[in-house]
């Protein structure tokens, strides 16, 4: 395309330079215009332990705050086990994410905190306090994004394990970054040199004694899977449709697929995916889809199926004819 003949060259983008949009809309690399919780460069980071763990080779990004990130680092001496502080500024002021496991435990009786990945943690909460805990996580701890909600049928324990996946976009891993190549190994998804972390020493662990920094420089965000075990014989859970605008869809799905009730949720009793379904909730483990299909639907003539092992055995090693 000839730029000179372009009637709106000001909004155009030069061929071969897709990352350098010069127009007014949309602009590449423009800083976030979000009014939410996204940290903005220039925001003071009150990191107290912006230091690498003792015994590790000092990295360029380990004890020196990166340019453009004013950091009031007070701990200049490398101390083993010194936690790196991650303060996020939320709607109601600053919150230090290191306190999250302890806060959830003391406020809502959360237990079984577990770091699956440096940017993914799992915690269990009593279903009675689930809505309060999710509200607090959203409003105070910065977990503003509901990725999904689903359930797992743990039939052996007689419970449905509800899972709410929340995401905190504001955790900025570029602020506190220290790598420990000696104790670490490469992440599973990104084999780059920048993403070296040590297993088990994740950003947020249950004691708050975070050490090495597990995630790639420049990445951000932390995901939290919140579990709640609901009695399988009486599955009723508080609805969170007022917290997130799309939550009622997930609740409708769980009602239809598992039979978990969410009183007050909009249209929760309507059919969602399985229109005209008359069987039991189909995602329960004790629902046998094959047996249901055999019992419900008629056989269509002209269709036969063979067990592959039996069929191949018969065709390869035919039975010797009986001697008369």
């Amino acid at each position, binding site marked *: 395309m000839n730029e000179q003949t372009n009637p709106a060259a000001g909004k155009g983008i030069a061929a071969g330079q897709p990352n350098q*949009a010069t127009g007014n809309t*949309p602009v590449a690399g423009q800083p976030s215009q*979000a009014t939410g919780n996204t940290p903005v460069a220039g925001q003071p980071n009150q990191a107290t332990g912006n230091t690498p763990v003792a015994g590790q080779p000092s990295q360029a990004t380990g004890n020196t705050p990166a340019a453009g990130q004013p950091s009031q680092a007070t701990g200049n001496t490398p101390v083993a086990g010194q936690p790196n502080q991650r303060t996020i500024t939320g709607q109601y002021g600053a919150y230090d994410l290191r306190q999250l496991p302890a806060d959830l435990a003391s406020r809502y009786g959360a237990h079984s905190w577990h770091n699956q990945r440096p940017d993914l943690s799992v915690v269990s909460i009593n279903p009675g306090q689930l809505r309060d805990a999710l509200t607090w996580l959203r409003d105070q701890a910065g977990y503003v994004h509901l990725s999904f909600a689903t359930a797992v049928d743990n039939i052996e324990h007689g419970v449905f394990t509800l899972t709410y996946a929340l995401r905190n976009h504001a955790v900025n891993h570029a602020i506190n970054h220290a790598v420990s190549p000696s104790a670490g190994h490469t992440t599973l998804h990104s*084999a780059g040199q920048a993403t070296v972390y040590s297993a088990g020493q994740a950003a947020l662990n249950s004691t708050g004694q975070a050490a090495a920094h597990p995630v790639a420089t420049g*990445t951000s965000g932390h995901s939290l899977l919140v579990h709640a075990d609901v009695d399988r014989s009486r599955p009723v859970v508080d609805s969170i449709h007022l917290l997130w605008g799309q939550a009622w869809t997930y609740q409708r799905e769980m009602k239809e697929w598992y039979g978990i009730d969410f009183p007050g949720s909009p249209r929760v009793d309507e059919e969602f995916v399985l229109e005209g379904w008359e069987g039991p909730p189909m995602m329960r483990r004790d629902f046998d889809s094959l047996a249901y299909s055999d019992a419900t639907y008629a056989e269509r003539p002209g269709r036969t199926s063979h067990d592959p092992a039996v069929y191949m055995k018969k065709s390869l090693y035919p039975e010797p004819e009986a001697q008369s």
Partner: protein
Amino acid sequence: MKKDQKPPIPPAERATLDLDSGKYLVMWQGPNHPGITGNMSLRLVIEGDTVVDCETHVGYLHRGFEKLMERRLWMQNFPLVCRIAVPEPDFNEYCYAAALEELAGIQIPDKAVWLRTLSLEMIRLASFLMWIGGQAGAFGHGTIAQWSVTMRDYVLDLFEELSGGRIYHMYIIPGGVRGDVPPGFLRHVLETMDTVQQNLDDIELVMFHNVVYKMRAQGLGYIPPEWVDHYGITGPNARAAGIRRDLRKDLGYLAYPRLDFQPIVGGVSDAYERSWLRLQEMYQSIDLIRQIVDCLPADGPVREKLPNPLHWKIPAGETYVAAECTRGEYGFYVVSDGSDKPRRVAVRGPSYTHAVAVMERLVRGVNIADVAGLMVSLHTYPPEVER
């Protein structure tokens, strides 16, 4: 819409309507309708030619994937997962494979990391090319659809050369990718990228500077930035509202930390801005593909040796692996109980919120003729709602 006019924001509450009053008309759009993306239907209540209420109905393409996966071996699920989002199966393959690798503790070779990134970017481009045809077609520009679907076919030719399949590739498998690039493939990639880029320049000229397209798309389906967190909006729909979130940057998975790109951010998330932003992301994908071709290691293994897939037991655990697909956050939540079959595989598709909750609210007050353009501008794929 006038230039200084603010796009209207639909009300949060549904209106109470007396359908027997004779003032309203109830009309179904879909499930088989050119203005609907995929198999889905909208139950519209119309007053004059304005939509006053909408209910989405999904389920026409429900195939029970999540239930089926619980009955199959880990490896047998691969032909299933790629069919969850038909126009871009590779994101399913990547998320599922990465979740298995994380649970089983498998590290993939560096060349596989690059080839996965190449595969994901190529399918991103192909999916956007299909979308832009639908977006233009919804406003009466059928020619654009013919151009862009041709370009998509050229990209699918590349996939055929790489993996043997045009639509479902099953190229990304646990432990890496299925094979190395064939001889001459990278040259074909670069040639195709040149062709597609030329065509995108034409599309920009014809579509985005067309006065009819501008008048109909500007101000349509305005998403305020406050909705992004409230409704869980991700991807280009959120970035067009000025929220700088791109999981390729935020999660830093695969080779993305080693590529040079910045998330593209817009300002006012209406249908025009979203389509404009996606056009820029197509250019960005072309640039990323060129970078990947430059950086691709010449040799090295492309996959890690796996245990016997028929007796492969994944250690007990759970994880959630997400990736940035064309529509936003695409994720797989995988739970293993230590057996040879998954306990639970849950798919998080971005259309779950875009096509249902957001769509139902945005469509209130829209002219009936613009419903199709609005729906396409959200870039929804109903199959991932139903799974």
